[in-house]
């Protein structure tokens, strides 16, 4: 049975996320694991606009929204101030950002936070484009996805560049903990949040959260798609402890990998892809999985 603490919702209902939003599921689990003794910063993005519609807030823990690029810097400042005042104790400092606020715009601040070795956990909620502003492409958008700034058409197959391996890049800063997780495996996600918070120094968690609005799938497919992404090998779940980025541990290995087609066919952002494109994506996923050793 779960303790009373775990039962307490730290992300209140009434937030304005779309029906079936993966971030809602992720945030409820993450904040429950972090507990009430936490301070958070949040970068501009879906999470910020949906949870802080003035004059209301869905947060039950102290939160600062700064700007798009500096969630990690503000979190560094909070950590440094608490340490200076001798009040750090068991307080968890979290910085949240979407994929835009982590992969692109917030990357410099994030890299600086890792380099200065602040005891902050950065959590990236990845829905693979700038969904809040209207589905613009990002360096997290996968190959072949149609977005409003990489539309598919006669001359284009949509996004033509691969997804940036952000968690491996974060891990390469020699930080004590870097991991990937997704909302289909809540226990795994909570375990990784716990490890990230307990790590002595900066930690990075890449959380994969499907978006019904931007990916154009049914609102009830959200969890299924997160699961399929792992089962097909599109998104690999792993963790690297103590800066051992060359010795990562795969935390969920599908027994038999499903074809990527099953994952792609459920989303309208991939609806224009021909068999040839799908084969190309399958080949890339196979190569990536071989790299990871399965």
């Amino acid at each position, binding site marked *: 049975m779960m303790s009373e603490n775990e039962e307490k919702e730290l992300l209140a209902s009434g*937030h304005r996320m779309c029906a079936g939003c993966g971030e809602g*599921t992720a945030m409820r689990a993450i904040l429950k694991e972090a507990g009430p003794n936490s301070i958070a910063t949040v970068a501009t993005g879906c999470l910020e606009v949906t949870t802080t*519609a003035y004059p209301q807030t869905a947060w039950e823990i102290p939160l600062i929204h700064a700007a798009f690029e500096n969630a990690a810097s503000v979190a560094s400042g909070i950590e440094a101030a608490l340490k200076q005042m001798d009040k750090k104790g068991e307080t968890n400092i979290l910085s949240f950002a979407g994929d835009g606020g982590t992969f692109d715009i917030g990357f410099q601040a994030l890299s600086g936070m890792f380099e200065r070795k602040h005891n902050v956990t950065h959590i990236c909620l990845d829905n693979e484009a700038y969904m809040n502003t209207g589905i613009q492409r990002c360096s997290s958008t996968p190959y072949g996805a149609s977005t409003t700034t990489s539309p598919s058409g006669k001359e284009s197959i949509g996004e033509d560049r691969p997804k940036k391996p952000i968690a491996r890049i974060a891990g390469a800063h020699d930080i004590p903990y870097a991991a990937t997780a997704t909302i289909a495996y809540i226990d795994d996600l909570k375990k990784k949040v716990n490890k990230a918070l307990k790590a002595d120094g900066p930690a990075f968690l890449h959380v994969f959260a499907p978006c019904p609005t931007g990916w154009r799938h049914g609102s009830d497919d959200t969890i299924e798609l997160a699961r399929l992404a792992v089962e097909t090998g599109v998104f690999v779940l792993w963790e690297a402890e103590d800066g051992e980025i060359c010795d990562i541990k795969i935390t969920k290995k599908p027994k038999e990998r499903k074809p990527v087609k099953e994952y792609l066919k459920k989303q309208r952002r991939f609806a224009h892809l021909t068999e040839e494109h799908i084969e190309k994506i399958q080949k890339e996923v196979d190569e990536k999985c071989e790299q990871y050793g399965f």
Partner: protein
Amino acid sequence: MSKVKITIAGINKKAGSSKEYKTGGWRTMKPEVDVEKCIQCFKCFDYCPDGAVKKTEDAIEFDLDYCKGCGICERECPVKAIVMKVEEK
């Protein structure tokens, strides 16, 4: 529109005040649970993005003030105890 008083630096002191806004009105489909079939695995509780599933002693119940009707609970229920029905106004 009621008047909103802006605080210094926009500081909001009322934690969890989003509960004042009922998102149940967004719903077109409404979940219903068969208490007899429920095995209390609480997958629906974990997966609900809106915290609209409440645990009860022998099963679960829905907080229809906040349920947006996404249907994740129906899809993820391992024993098919939850069914989505068209919302009647």
